[in-house]
């Protein structure tokens, strides 16, 4: 080897060393400023459907239409600790529909019938205002259209329903298609711990 060592070999070696040094330097720089995993999150304070003051406008369904996975990775979540458990829930019922014989709106709001309700304890038919209901959103039916989110906030509701990302479905696109379409820049990348905390509820 040593007797055949030419200038060409030397240049080659030097070039390799330079490239390796560049790569190593770049990698080292990035590793030093790296944090753990990041995930996408819907910022409820920015999202058109859940942010306060957006009343009387049509619900934004870009999360449904823009997401690259078949059933959107965004869905509505009922934060039960904030839920009013109302007898007539504006997110469960279409409150502009006609009243039926039980005194309740005759239509449901959800186009995919993803919300179910069951009385908590025994429902008293004489005192409907004090009957509490638990509202559950079926994760497999919800496509994140945001209609219920738009209804459940001041002044109609308490704002317990927000849009969240189901991380088991989200493919974590480099360039989240929803984030580029969202008019309010509500999709943000956050460290995974923050994404898993129950924050973002106003």
């Amino acid at each position, binding site marked *: 080897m040593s007797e055949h060592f030419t200038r060409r070999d030397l240049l*080659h070696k030097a070039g*390799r060393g*330079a*490239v*390796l040094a560049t*790569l190593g330097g*770049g*990698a080292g720089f*990035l*590793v030093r*400023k*790296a*944090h*753990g*995993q*990041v995930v996408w999150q819907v910022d409820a304070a920015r999202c058109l459907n859940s942010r306060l003051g957006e009343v009387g406008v049509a619900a934004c369904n870009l999360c449904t239409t823009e997401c*690259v*996975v*078949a059933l959107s990775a965004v869905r509505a*979540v*009922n934060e039960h*600790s*904030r*839920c*009013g*458990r*109302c*007898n*007539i829930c*504006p997110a469960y019922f279409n*409150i*502009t529909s*006609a*009243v039926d014989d039980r005194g309740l*709106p005759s239509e449901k709001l959800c186009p995919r019938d993803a919300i179910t309700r069951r009385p*908590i*304890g025994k429902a008293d038919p004489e005192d409907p205002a004090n009957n*509490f209901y*638990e509202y*559950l959103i079926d*994760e497999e039916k919800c496509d994140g259209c945001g209609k219920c989110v738009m209804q459940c906030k001041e*002044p*109609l*509701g*308490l704002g*317990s329903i927000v849009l*969240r990302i189901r*991380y*088991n*479905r*989200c*493919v*974590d*696109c*480099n*360039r989240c298609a929803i984030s580029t379409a969202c008019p309010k820049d509500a999709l943000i990348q956050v460290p*995974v711990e923050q*994404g*898993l905390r*129950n924050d973002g509820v106003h």
Partner: protein
Amino acid sequence: MTGSIEMAHATSTRRAVAAILALFILATVAVPTIAAQSIPYQRPVDTAPQEKTIGGGYKTPAAQKPLPRNSWLQLLDVAVLAAALAISSWLVLKRRSRKALVALAAGSLAYFGFYREGCVCPIGSIQNVAVALTNPQYSIPMVVTATFFLPLVVAVFFGRAFCGGVCALGALQELVLLKPVRVPRRLDRALGLLKYVYLGLAIFFALKPARDFLICRFDPFVGFFRRTGAPHMLMIGGAFLLAGLFVGRPYCRYLCPYGALLNWCTRVARRGVTITPDKELDCGLCTDACPYGAIEKMRAVRRNCLYCARCYAACPRDGKLARAKAQLVTLSAEPARS
């Protein structure tokens, strides 16, 4: 007689039509009046009742929260990438087996393509790395850093092993290449410059304040991996695959921005494809077999070689059959073969 029956028939039809019309008008007028009788809605409560106020031992259900992929699964991706790179290098440089390499490529296509749905890939990671290097606020996970640098470091030592057996986009095109035609060398060179333009554009748009990741947006094959995608991108992907039946790996050779980086790293590579282990036959079968125009003067041009190992498969001096033939030759005619 017959005429009057017909007349009666006609009147009854007319009556039915009138009745349906009347019903329709009634319905269109009546529905809004019913709808107007909705409740004057008022919020029933001002605060959320909690477990104590509800009573009866009620427990607040936890909000459903599907977790993201475990971090160890992300590490597994990097480990699989590293292992695939090592196996690909070994298969091409030592084992010299096209069959095994195609099997590895199919495996990579299944894992990185269809299971991981094309994310995260070294090609797209260029953009994250570019943003992270220039923007102090932006930081990228270690997994993405590793995904970007591993194939480049391997290329500095062993050449473009990533392209041969690891890249899902490359594997898809490798598998559809049925009838390779030779692209005229000049055209091939000119088209090859596109990838540098694309690399520049991708970095430029990634660094712009309105961050746009062109490489991901115009990834022609990710739609197939996810079995869904924008119709125009699926069409472009289909066009690439159709062209890829005849033109070897068009995306890799002419557009892939990561290919541009690998090209640079491979210029100083320690090792590369050597077509025959001892001496060349000068028969030119390898040159004909190379769909990528990467063999010049019977030698593999490292920076363009995509590690498909077709040249080995075409070489009469390589592989088991070749060794058997060589022995036959030794036995019958050539006693002095060392």
